[in-house]
């Protein structure tokens, strides 16, 4: 068996590794900007609504600043999204060439929705000065829905790779009977989309809250920071329990739909009932065993089917060449995601109870440090979840139908390594640039709060005192 695994690895074309590395890097970079594109517009509209309803200038200040930041992240996301659409052909011509007609339609849908979002975002960002307040708000209102539509399309295409539908392969190996609508509404779509949408809102909300918590910890305890914490943290607190349920349903669905992925996630080596839940540990592919890790008896069977008697197929039932290429990574990523989810559940409970009792940001150092790190933690969970989905599907690019090495480009591996290095360098610069600019923005705004400029929102209305904004 050992020889067989090695032979398989050697058989993989040399360009597969750099192509996968480049795809992983660019996707993991792009995914950082997705939650901001989806959820930041919602938060800015909530602040905008609050500001208009209560004539609250602090809320309006938050709204216009969040919209400005959304403009920047939207632009960088547009660039990194373009990279991905090129890579569908540059790296995976076997996939788009053969199956483009089946799963391509949602990308066309997303392209148009992105266009619509770009137009609406431009109107919203450039409309603060002169549009009538409520007109401005109503023109911005479609943005989150259009963004959700875009995310739906992309997740649909990814879900199709996990649960391909909407076509048949005839005796000659040709793709026929294409039904692009059946491909869009594939079996994995409901849980993958729900799980990602809630995750995206959590990531953006916890990140925005984290930023203001850091300011709060530095002693900027004004209403501006209070609102900046309370609006996103409330959203996140409501969503964490939802995600617990959705995440559990997703895991159970993966158990049914993709047993090999589930076995890798939970590092189930031998099939059977009474499967233990193994935390971390290291998988040895040569012997199909786990070294180290903490084992909780029966829990895995119970989670998968509600009883310790649930039969869970293990990796021993998957032919070695069809096992996920790196079980340890999938398993660790899954454990990290679930672990962070559990921590965030505690944070949400803490915040929920504290807010219910005192109606304010909890004044506890441990809570504040915890909340300040929640943004980064959620992002680690999002990335880990993405690794579970993608690495867990390997060696398939289209589950059980097309192997990743069949889809990869025949471009010379050396060329791919060069382009991978260039892109890594470019993205590093881009990441540093984005962070620098966002920090410069926040510094500039803090200075303008101190000088208290009297640029009232929505044109020449009598300026309401912004004194609350000043620390």
């Amino acid at each position, binding site marked *: 068996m050992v020889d067989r695994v090695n032979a398989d690895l050697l058989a993989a074309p040399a360009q597969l590794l750099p192509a996968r590395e480049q795809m992983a890097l660019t996707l993991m970079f792009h995914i950082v900007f997705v939650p901001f594109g989806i959820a930041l517009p919602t938060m800015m509209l909530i602040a905008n609504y609050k500001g208009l309803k209560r004539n609250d200038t602090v809320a309006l200040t938050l709204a216009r600043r969040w919209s400005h930041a959304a403009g920047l992240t939207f632009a960088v996301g547009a660039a990194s999204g373009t990279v991905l659409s090129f890579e569908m052909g540059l790296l995976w011509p076997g996939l788009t060439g053969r199956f*483009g007609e089946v799963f391509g339609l949602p990308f066309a849908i997303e392209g148009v929705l992105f266009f619509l979002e770009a137009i609406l975002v431009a109107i919203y960002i450039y409309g603060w000065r002169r549009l009538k307040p409520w007109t401005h708000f109503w023109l911005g209102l479609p943005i989150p829905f259009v963004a959700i539509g875009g995310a739906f399309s992309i997740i649909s295409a990814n879900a199709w790779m996990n649960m391909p539908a909407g076509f048949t392969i005839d005796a000659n190996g040709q793709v026929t009977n294409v039904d692009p609508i059946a491909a869009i509404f594939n079996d994995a779509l409901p849980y993958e989309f729900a799980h990602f949408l809630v995750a995206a809102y959590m990531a953006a909300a916890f990140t925005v809250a984290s930023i203001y918590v850091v300011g709060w910890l530095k002693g900027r305890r004004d209403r501006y920071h209070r609102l900046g914490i309370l609006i996103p943290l409330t959203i996140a607190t409501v969503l964490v329990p939802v995600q617990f349920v959705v995440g559990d349903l997703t895991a159970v669905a993966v158990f049914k739909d993709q047993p090999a992925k589930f076995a890798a996630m939970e590092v189930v080596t031998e099939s059977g009932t009474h499967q233990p839940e193994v935390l971390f540990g290291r998988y040895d592919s040569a012997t199909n065993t786990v070294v180290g890790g903490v084992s909780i008896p029966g829990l895995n069977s119970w989670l998968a089917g509600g009883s310790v008697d649930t039969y869970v197929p293990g990796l021993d039932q998957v032919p070695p060449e069809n096992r996920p290429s790196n079980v340890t990574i999938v398993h660790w990523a899954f454990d990290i995601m679930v672990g962070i989810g559990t921590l965030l559940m505690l944070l949400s409970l803490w915040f929920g109870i504290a807010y219910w009792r005192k109606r304010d940001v909890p004044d506890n150092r441990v809570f504040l440090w915890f909340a300040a790190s929640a943004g980064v933690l959620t992002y680690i969970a999002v990335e880990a979840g993405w690794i579970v989905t993608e690495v867990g599907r390997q060696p398939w690019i289209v589950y059980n139908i097309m192997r990743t090495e069949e889809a990869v480009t025949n471009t010379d591996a050396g060329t791919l390594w060069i382009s991978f290095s260039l892109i890594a360098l470019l993205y590093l610069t881009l990441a540093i640039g984005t962070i620098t600019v966002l920090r410069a923005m926040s510094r500039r705004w803090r200075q303008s709060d101190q000088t208290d400029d009297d640029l009232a929102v929505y044109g020449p209305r009598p300026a309401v005192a912004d004194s609350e904004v000043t620390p």
Partner: protein
Amino acid sequence: MNTAIAVAGVMMLALTLYACTGIADYGAGFWDLTAGGRDRGRLPRSLIDNAVTPVWEANHVWLIYVLVVCWTGFGSTFASVMSTLYIPLALALLGIVLRAAGFAMSKDAARARMRHLAGWLFGIGSFLTPFCLGTAVGAVLTGRIPVGNAAGDEITSWLNPSSILVGLLTVAIGAYVSAVYLLAEAHRHGTAALHGYFRLRARAAGVAGLLLGIGVLIALYADERQMADRVVQRGWPLLLLSLALLAGSFWLATGVRVWLMRLVAAGGIAALVWAWAVAQYPYLLPFSLTVQDGAADPATLRWLLIWFVAALVLVVPALTLLFWLDQRGELGEDPATSRPEPVEPEPVETETIR
């Protein structure tokens, strides 16, 4: 009408719009790059910045749309082109990211040095991207892309006289059409000082484009005679139209007829793009794959067309609203969140977005 040809038409339409808008944005970047030192270039750079910043994302979307329609409607063509032309397309992509990053950052970068760097990134991307995309068009036009996964030559498919000349022509097209747009912008903003500046550049780039276009034809004759004949025999009315519109824009530039001038210049570019399409028809990849043979399943093509109509219903009103609000002067930078201009060059207004 046949659905495969209709989808190919939609793709060409999006490509035409990209040539008239997205490629023009790169042209603006070319003028930004060549505007000279920091003091001398301040006025034109400020105009370029104000003209392009609000619209580049929307203009850029056409390219993404072309890509996704291509891989959905004509998957094997997409796979063949992208894999054989890995190098120029990866370089074009590099330029796109550099350019987008430059735009996203330059507005809010606090330090002058960083803004300067962003300007450089924007400028380099502005040459690299249209050139590489042009060489890719040249590779398709000269029949150097066989069907298959990286089946063509990775280097000579795009590094040959015809393809290089098409690449340079694409750069010239962008430079020309953007100079015309910028002349119109200068007029709209009452920046009289820049009238002569961009008029000269529009004419220079127009002449350069004309010479490069002739160069492409000559190279094509030597290189791929069959395609050269098709370009001339089928495309001559469009080529003549393009030439007439080029001359027309030269003439209109004298009196600066803002709207007409822009339309005539864009029309000239559109005629050129369609001359290419007509010459190639019915081939997606000359002379090995036709539109019919390379097309997706009819169900997919039908849905692409349905979605195209739906997209028009969604996007056209939104775009109209954007332009209507803009023309009424309802849109502008939010001074409370934007970085104030260090030394505001007084003639250029930031109040309108275009």
